[in-house]
């Protein structure tokens, strides 16, 4: 298993280490529920150094990336990022990712840890066939880059303490807390320069910080120290999963895979069918016109029950009840106190309010299709 630069920090903090995507990562430090609630109420700090980073620079960088990603990259001015997907020729998802425009001809892709090799292989393959490939450079900088995510309503109060001066690149703000959602800028930390974006995977306000691998430990330590007075806790992959499930964000390998299209996953907003061609475009256009064969829905259990889990069978109700498939994701929701999950169902079962049953250890438990997101911040 690979280890991030923060491995020693995880050990010191009592992190319980598990294997994830080939990496040895903390699933929790104290308790998944405590860490989850800390993010919702104050702040949590996540090591995301296992994620992959790819740089594309040059006059043809935009054209190349726009020809392999689903979202319209031309919408990005320097200092902005967008959620996007990469599809194969059948419209199946190779990965979901964030694409940032760092400068006029400089792009950064943040990709899933479990898909880094596949993504880089695909991008290199696509680059071979790109007529203007001499006008851009593609670099896999994953091993040289570390990253952390700091998420929660209190984060804006202390993130500024970890960086000095105003932005030296990207969106020209005086401090990280002046970044708007999806904006990114470069700041000086104690030992290096870091890209700070106002993005996250938890449904809370927060930031993600990418820096040279040798500088990420210092950034982690500074954030931990600055955030302590505000209730910041280190948080592991367990809380990361419960948080993203509550707001119905997909996880590759669960809601997304190479046999599933972004439209089936309900991500049509991030697919631009008229920006020009990209792999899978024709199939996605066809799905948009004719409808999709399966739809991703969010579910809640009706009564207190054992937690739903990925892989648990899902059934329709009534006399001609049939097995619809399996849960893509499932957990106890620490914020809601009920079981939640996501699953693909035939379109006729996708309406909010549709009763379904989750099979838990041979028993069918009542559930209902719920609107997304399952959890919304109280007004």
């Amino acid at each position: 298993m690979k280890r991030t630069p923060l491995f020693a920090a995880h050990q010191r903090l009592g992190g319980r280490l598990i294997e994830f995507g080939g990496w040895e990562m903390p699933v929790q430090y104290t308790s998944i529920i405590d860490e989850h609630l800390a993010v919702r109420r104050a702040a949590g700090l996540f090591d995301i150094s296992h994620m992959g980073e790819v740089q594309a620079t040059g006059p043809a960088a935009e054209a190349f990336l726009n020809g392999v990603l689903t979202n319209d990259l031309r919408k990005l001015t320097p200092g902005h990022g967008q959620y996007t997907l990469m599809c194969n020729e059948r419209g199946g998802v190779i990965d979901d990712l964030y694409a940032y425009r760092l400068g006029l001809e400089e792009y950064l892709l943040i990709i899933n840890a479990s898909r880094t090799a596949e993504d880089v292989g695909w991008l290199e393959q696509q680059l071979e066939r790109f007529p203007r490939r001499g006008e851009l450079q593609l670099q896999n900088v994953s091993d040289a880059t570390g990253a952390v995510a700091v998420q929660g309503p209190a984060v804006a109060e202390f993130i500024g303490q970890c960086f000095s001066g105003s932005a030296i690149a990207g969106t020209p703000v005086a401090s990280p807390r002046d970044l708007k959602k999806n904006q990114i800028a470069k700041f000086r930390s104690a030992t290096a320069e870091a890209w700070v974006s106002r993005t996250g995977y938890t449904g809370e306000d927060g930031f993600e910080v990418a820096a040279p691998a040798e500088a990420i430990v210092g950034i982690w330590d500074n954030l931990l120290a600055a955030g302590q007075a505000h209730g910041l806790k280190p948080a592991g992959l367990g809380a990361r999963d419960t948080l993203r499930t509550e707001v119905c964000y997909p996880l590759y390998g669960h809601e997304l895979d190479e046999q599933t299209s972004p439209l089936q996953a309900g991500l049509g907003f991030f697919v631009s069918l008229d920006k020009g061609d990209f792999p899978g475009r024709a199939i996605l256009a066809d799905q948009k016109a004719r409808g999709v064969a399966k739809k991703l829905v969010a579910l809640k259990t009706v009564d207190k029950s054992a937690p739903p889990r990925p892989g648990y069978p899902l059934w329709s109700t009534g006399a001609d009840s049939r097995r619809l498939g399996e849960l893509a994701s499932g957990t106890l929701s620490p914020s809601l106190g009920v079981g939640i999950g996501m699953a693909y169902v035939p379109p006729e079962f996708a309406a909010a309010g549709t009763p379904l049953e989750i099979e838990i250890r041979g028993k069918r438990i009542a559930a209902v299709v719920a609107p997304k997101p399952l959890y919304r911040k109280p007004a």
Partner: protein
Amino acid sequence: MANVPADLKYAKSHEWVRQAGGVATIGITDHAQHELTDVVFVELPQVGRRLKAGEACAVVESVKTASDIYSPAGGEVTEVNQAIVDNPALVNTDPYGSGWFYKLRLATPAEVDALLSPEQYRAQIGG
């Protein structure tokens, strides 16, 4: 270091037994609750069910895992602890007290004698 009370017997699968007369009270150990962390759900056997030693009879779930509980001894279930159904966190906070799972009228009390002593269990968990 896990708490391993001296007046109990233990199964290799991390259940404890408190015996009084022919009735055994059964739960999971401090070591087990610590490994699970937040217990969020418990499924208990039905009162009246007859169990054999080693039979899977209950389930304890945390956010990330569902674990079977194996009856350390055989007998008839006489009582189950509704308190941990209503408040699963008791299994974490008081595993040997209010976090008990079920009581058994022992079919063969000698089965309890054959379980691990506190010293043997402590050795098993490396404490």
